[in-house]
């Protein structure tokens, strides 16, 4: 899998973010593992710390293992005003995890993120690549139930 993704890209450093996205999206834990970091560094002829430095900078990327479903709650001023904080509290209570934590069954990880650009339908969350807006406790229940 790793080599397949790496082969898609020229050995040029500017493809680092593209490679990291692809690897993370293909990982069941939605992260970039230490082994992958070694491979990427070799492929692009850069140091492992350069790869790690880039992962550490960008909030979408992580070397830490996450879960099958990554829930990212929009924390922009708009979502916040229209109940975004309650969304975090509600999901947190329901899944019994704090921000940045994962459920023991490996199903959900809860994170917050900056404006998702879905402001006309605030508050919003993103689950993996899918966007949900106009959230209410009922809708959150429904979304989580469908994923389980």
């Amino acid at each position: 899998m790793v080599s397949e993704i790496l082969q898609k890209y020229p050995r040029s450093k500017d493809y680092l973010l593209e490679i990291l996205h692809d690897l993370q999206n293909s990982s069941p834990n939605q992260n970039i593992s230490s082994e992958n970091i070694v491979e990427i560094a070799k492929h692009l002829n850069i140091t492992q710390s350069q790869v790690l430095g880039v992962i550490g900078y960008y909030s979408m990327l992580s070397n830490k293992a996450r879960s099958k479903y990554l829930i990212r709650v929009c924390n922009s001023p708009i979502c916040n005003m229209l109940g975004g904080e309650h969304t975090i509290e509600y999901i947190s209570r329901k899944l019994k995890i704090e921000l940045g934590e994962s459920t023991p069954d490996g199903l959900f990880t809860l994170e917050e993120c900056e404006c998702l650009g879905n402001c006309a339908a605030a508050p919003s969350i993103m689950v993996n690549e899918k966007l949900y807006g106009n959230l209410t406790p009922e809708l959150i229940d429904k979304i989580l139930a469908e994923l389980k």
Partner: protein
Amino acid sequence: MVKEVRIALRNSGKINPESIDEYINADGYQALRKALRSTPSGIYDEIIDSGLRGRGGAGFPTGTKEKTTALICADCEKYVVCNADEGEPGTFKDRVIMETDPHSLVEGMIIAGFSINASYGYIYIRGEYSLSISRVQKAIDQAREKKFLGENILGSGYSFDIEIRRGAGSYLCGEELTLLESLEGKRGYPRIKPPYPAERGLWGKPTLINNVETLANFAPIILNGAVWYRSIGTEKSPGTKIFTVSGDVNNPGYYETPTGLTLRELIFDFGGGIKNGRTFKAALLGGAAGTFASAQLLDVQMGYDKLKEHGLTLGSGAVIVMDETRDLVKSLETIMKFFKHESCGKCIPCRLGTAQIYQSICGFSEIPVQKREDFFKSILKQADLMAKTSLCPLGQSPILPLRSIWQNFSDELLTLK
């Protein structure tokens, strides 16, 4: 009542965004054909004459930037970069363009490329916009199939191609020079300006950077001419602007209107007025890096210069509406927390300043009423110093909401319990 005039969003909702044939049937790629029969100077002169200004937030004259990049060297390698890293809170216009009419961006970008004789283009889209990414990718592939992209476009002798690059969750990468760092595969740290991208941009080469909405205006301007474009909107900010209205309004959404309509028209006619029968209190214009307008300013015209006269900003076109029940200090707190989180830490004034201002605002309501004025003025002084000494626009931004809230809502700040 003012009506919507759709230029950048001309096809939005009317055609299937995944069909190039439908785009072509709606006069799509006609402007490109016309451009290729003209000359680079013919294109940038038309854009200069149109008065189009950058729609990403800064409002710099687009044609001037093109001309500078075109003339900086004759045969050197140059790039066009589209800034689609839309991250300003309350802004979602670029997403709408990319999701509903991606070819308008692709066509605009090829025309921009031709006008500066660029060899290659990159569209840097924020990683969270997955639907935009797939729609724009499809549009690029279709355009290449029809020979609008690639070698010797439509037999003109001009060759150009476009690639998408994904951002990965950094507000700062929406700043043009930081975006270039990210495009080069690095951490998003800002560069020192000057040199400007027109002189030294991507990989040190002259680079033209334009926002999605700006580029979506290119084809209509080339097709219909600068005089037509100038006949719309105000004299100093001609054309249309897409406003994204959110918060406590009945009809949140995106509205493309001629510049020069008033804030009142935007909120009450387009936005449908304040929700739940409440009254208007404030509008945050331009997102977090924006300014707070009060009810006294509802009749100000929504153009770069008119707003500036009142200490306000148009920015990206975000209008975040707050009703009478909203706590402005709480909004400021969220905004300052945002800047603190997004500060990259490269320069000290911003790294320390954003954290300290956030702390001060968090403690603001604890300050005894008689000491509030001095306290807030010291925050303003700090934000002003930060604006003067920071490397990039992030550290220069917190002063905007702080100063405008002080100008327009000091009574409330001073008496708030």
